[in-house]
């Protein structure tokens, strides 16, 4: 199935969970990434049980510091 991850079209398998998608997309520190699925920020505890639906829009939002130092 086709989904959109951070603005890019991605081919993945049917039934994949958010946790599995984080691994598949080689996200380095998945425990500190916020995930928005179809416009909704997910609770971290729900990642393993949440299945990504076909055609979903997924955003991985990363902590970004920077600035002063």
């Amino acid at each position: 199935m086709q989904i959109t991850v951070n603005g890019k079209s991605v081919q993945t398998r049917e039934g994949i969970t958010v946790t599995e998608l984080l691994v598949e997309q080689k996200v380095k520190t998945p425990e500190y990434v916020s995930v928005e699925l179809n416009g909704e920020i997910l609770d971290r505890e729900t990642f393993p049980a949440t299945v990504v639906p076909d055609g979903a829009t997924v955003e991985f939002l990363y902590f970004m510091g920077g600035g002063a130092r």
Partner: protein
Amino acid sequence: MTLDNEQIERYSRQILLREVGGKGQEKLLASRVLLVGAGGLGSPAALYLAAAGVGTLGLIDGDRVDRTNLQRQIAHFTPDIGTPKVESAAAKLAALNPGVKIETYTEHATADNILEIAGRYDFVIDGTDNFSAKFLINDACYFAERPFSHAGILRFDGQLLTVLPGRTACYRCLFGGPPPAGAVPSCSQAGVLGSMAGVIGCLQATEALKCLLGAGELLTDRMLIFEALALRFREVKLRRNPRCPLCGENPTITTLVEADPVVCDLREARR
């Protein structure tokens, strides 16, 4: 306040804008913006705000200029190494526009000082580098009811979000709370292209000016993601999170407290 001839000349190019005009310029001159952090993001933001004639700029930063800062913190010059950043930046702002009043706080933002300081300003710019400060600013602006601009930069990427506390999605709506120290890479570990600070800091200044002028649409309920390598701006739509620990339906954060000083900089964490 009426503009004198010198002011009309200095600000003529923006007074020409329908969204600014003489009235808007007077509004800017009567406005107060606080910059938390006088570094990578704070430098360009402060310079453009001073140039635009924002009447009072507050600068809060406890650091001194270091040689490694000069690659991106453009308010500081080589002879400034060792000088407090707020003093170094204040001197440049005063030289650029003597008509702007600069208020300096040579200290880091903490739970003890930031609420009171932020309350004295109309808009706050988060130009800090560490996550405990970013959450502190988010929370302080919520309690002080001050609009603010969040931003972060790393490597070739940047992110930006404007928050109208209690009305639009806040930083905690997205991220909940800070990551543990060292868990997330920092600029000093992972690097950052200097011009990223310019791009994102200038966008923060733009949001501040728009907010003060009441012009256009603010970057609220959407996060701007800038990817310089692809030269791509993306927007992620957001909405307030009912489970947000600060602005959600059952908040667990009801007073301003600072998390353990979690810095995104391992060198700093070891200090």
